[in-house]
């Protein structure tokens, strides 16, 4: 590229950093995503083994059984680096802020009948605790994963889950006029109600999964893949049919977020599965194991949330997840 400054001509020496050029197969202009992502994590010459995990190096490929020749094959289809990520979320946040204000000033949630209050408290609000665990799980992946391509995306996912937990909390506060009673009620349901306990067991089990890629599968693919459509599609529609579109305005973020992030989740599994038979088989094993566990967890809950056809809907969702899984080369 030639840049003319006054009368002197300047010849640019190079277009991008050497590590990026090596990946692009030559010195070519690179995107901001590429420069902010490739090879950012230290890879060699670590100094000390972690006191909290002396079996591994500080960063270590062996913390998962998935094997990759190049961990930067996992580029994010959304091309999120911090700047594009926060700008995208700040736009979504603006919509949510308007929606919330709209609902709040008109008291649209508070003035719903008691049954509607109970329905949200017992069916939707306990999910804030699921989000909380999803936040921890993605933080765990960010902490222990290999390669910035994956771990930066899971960092955004970590904060997204905290954000969603807080959006759910806000629904509770809109409902109970800021007393927090609905949140306390939802927590009681989460802790004590029999129908929720299998889900809580799944979630607590996920918090101790050692292989971070398996954790990615159990949380971001399997559980979210079943629970998001269940809650934000089916329950939302059902609630809307009875009480109008207020709830959909407040869960708008969650539905669009799920559509956006599943593209990245699928792309991640697809790349890992395409790498080798070994990976594909392992992913298949994990998807099968965790789907089975998730079905156990949701069996009592689906009818509780969705009523009579809850069981049938769960079956459909499981079938859909299977299709999704096969489409990305993972046979469970």
């Amino acid at each position, binding site marked *: 590229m030639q840049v003319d400054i006054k009368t002197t001509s300047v010849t640019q020496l190079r277009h991008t950093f050497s590590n990026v050029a090596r990946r692009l197969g030559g010195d070519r202009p690179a995107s901001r995503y590429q420069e902010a992502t490739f090879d950012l994590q230290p890879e060699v010459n*670590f100094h000390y083994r972690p006191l*909290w995990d002396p079996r591994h190096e500080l960063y270590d490929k062996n913390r998962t059984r998935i094997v990759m020749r190049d961990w930067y094959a996992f580029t994010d289809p959304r091309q999120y680096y911090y700047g594009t990520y926060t700008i995208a979320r700040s736009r979504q946040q603006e919509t949510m802020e308007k929606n919330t204000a709209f609902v709040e000033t008109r008291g649209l949630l508070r003035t719903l009948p*008691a049954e509607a209050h109970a329905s949200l408290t017992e069916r939707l609000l306990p999910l804030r605790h699921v989000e909380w665990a999803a936040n921890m799980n993605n*933080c765990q992946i960010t902490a222990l994963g290999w390669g910035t391509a994956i771990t930066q995306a899971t960092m955004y996912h970590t904060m997204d889950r905290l*954000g969603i937990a807080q959006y759910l909390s806000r629904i509770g506060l809109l409902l109970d*006029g*800021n007393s*927090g009673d609905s949140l306390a009620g939802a927590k009681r349901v989460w802790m004590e109600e029999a129908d929720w306990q299998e889900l809580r067991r799944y979630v607590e089990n996920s918090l101790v999964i050692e292989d971070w890629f398996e954790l990615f599968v159990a949380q971001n693919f399997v559980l979210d893949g079943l629970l998001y459509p269940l809650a934000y599609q089916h329950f939302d529609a059902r609630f809307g049919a009875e009480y109008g579109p207020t709830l959909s305005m407040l869960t708008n973020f969650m539905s669009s977020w799920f559509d956006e992030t599943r593209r990245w989740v699928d792309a991640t599994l697809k790349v890992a599965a395409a790498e080798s038979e070994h990976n594909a088989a392992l992913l298949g094993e994990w998807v099968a194991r965790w789907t089975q566990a998730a079905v156990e967890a949701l069996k009592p809950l689906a009818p509780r949330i969705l009523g009579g056809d809850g069981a049938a809907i769960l079956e459909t969702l499981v079938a859909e997840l299977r299709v999704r899984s096969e489409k990305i080369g993972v046979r469970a």
Partner: protein
Amino acid sequence: MTTNKSSNIAKAPRKLSLKENYALMTRDLGWQPSYQSVDKIFPHDHFEGIKIHNWEGWEDPFRLTMDAYWKYQGEKERKLYAIIDAFQQNNGQFNVTDARYINTLKLFLTGVSPLEYAAHRGFAIAGRAFRGVGPRVACQMQAIDELRHVQTQIHTISHYNKFFNGLHDFKHMHDRVWYLSVPKSYFDDAMSAGPFEFITAISFSFEYVLTNLLFMPFMSGAAFNGDMATVTFGFSAQSDESRHMTLGLEVVKFILEQDPDNVPIVQKWLDKWFWRGYRLLTLVAMMMDYMLPKRVMSWAEAWEIYFEQNGGSLFRDLERYGIRMPKYHEVATKEKNRLSHEAWATFYNYTAATDFHTWVPSSQEMNWLSEKYPETFDRYYRPRFEFWRERQQQGKRFYNPTLPMLCQTCQIPMIFTEPDDPTKICYRETEYRGEKFHFCSDGCKDIFCDEPEKYVQAWLPVHQIYQGNCFLPDADPTAPGFNPLAEVLRYYNLNVGHDNGDYADSPDRRNWEQWTGRPGAPVEEEEVGKAA
């Protein structure tokens, strides 16, 4: 609408204080697990011996919910990238004082930006490790902020990389180049410790106590030298930094308040991380005194303001917890009039193997140094620089072809002098499992002796070179004419003749003069005289 049918006549919503709102939104999310044990879910937050009786005692100072975070940060990013775009379009890289300034950016991008990344990962580890909800969220927030910092730094400096050498493979070099093991091992040390030590080391000792000595010199240096891009990210990061600093103070107070048994552990960490951080700042000291074409203040002045005064009053505040000033702070004060000179002289020696250029300061610059360091510069350092200048003028620029002995702890070559004798190199040693280990100071020796099993693992660049671990796979040490130094530089991916060596005859300088029509370094008075 269903409003009229509602049996539940709603009261007006209660007003929530920020604190209540935050508590309801975030902290009440946790629960006592029953299907897995708490210790299994949080296996790493008790082995360090820190006792926490009440995690709720953690006061989150910011109470920032995610929607507010996205809103503020998104706005900051929009502004920052607009300025970076404008900077690039207007060729702002040519507005800096002269091309010597770019070398501070090389030091920053290879030495500091990768630490931002390390901080990102370290806070992610801590953000999962603590069983208390408050500290976990605070650490996660910082984890994502640090990712911001490394990425905005790369995007800012990316443009300089297109026009100057030495920036082109910063992460690769951070993992390999000899002197970059100093910052790398510093962070590896913190991350490989437990979460309490990590957060004490980074949030408190580094962000709170020492950050003004890192960030201020680079950012003010950028402002003084016309680097508006760097100034912009510096400003933009400032509000993040102030959050991080507050976290640092909160966390240490929280730990200290929880149990008296925590006090000696924290004191030991404060001693260790003060000294680790101070040694790391050697690189900043030389940057301030030698590398900035327009200087902001001297290292000694910065040390007086930011450590002796500010740090002193901070530690006086902590006295009520039973905390005293960090060990060897008086040694740092004794060293303040020598540190930068000893460091720059070393880099001048070894610049054949660095990704940035060095040079002998100009006569005016030496006068500035004499003025700022009246007790030391003329006496100990000026003669050496004048001698080197003379040699260089005779075409015999001195490059040291041997490899220096490194301190086992801080990994800086053994260049520092005895606390009470600036003419005598300070050597300390100890034995561990029948082997001898060497240190630059009592501070570094103490750190080793407290955890020898950790520090014997250090990846010391000089040892690694001698062991043959710093060659590419195709290098053949048995081949005739094998040149080990050249092979090490190839392993570093250092572009010899462009990235390294003296600034005087560097392509950076030539390009600068050709492209801007301005001198690449101050014109010496004697040369002006000769020309006239």
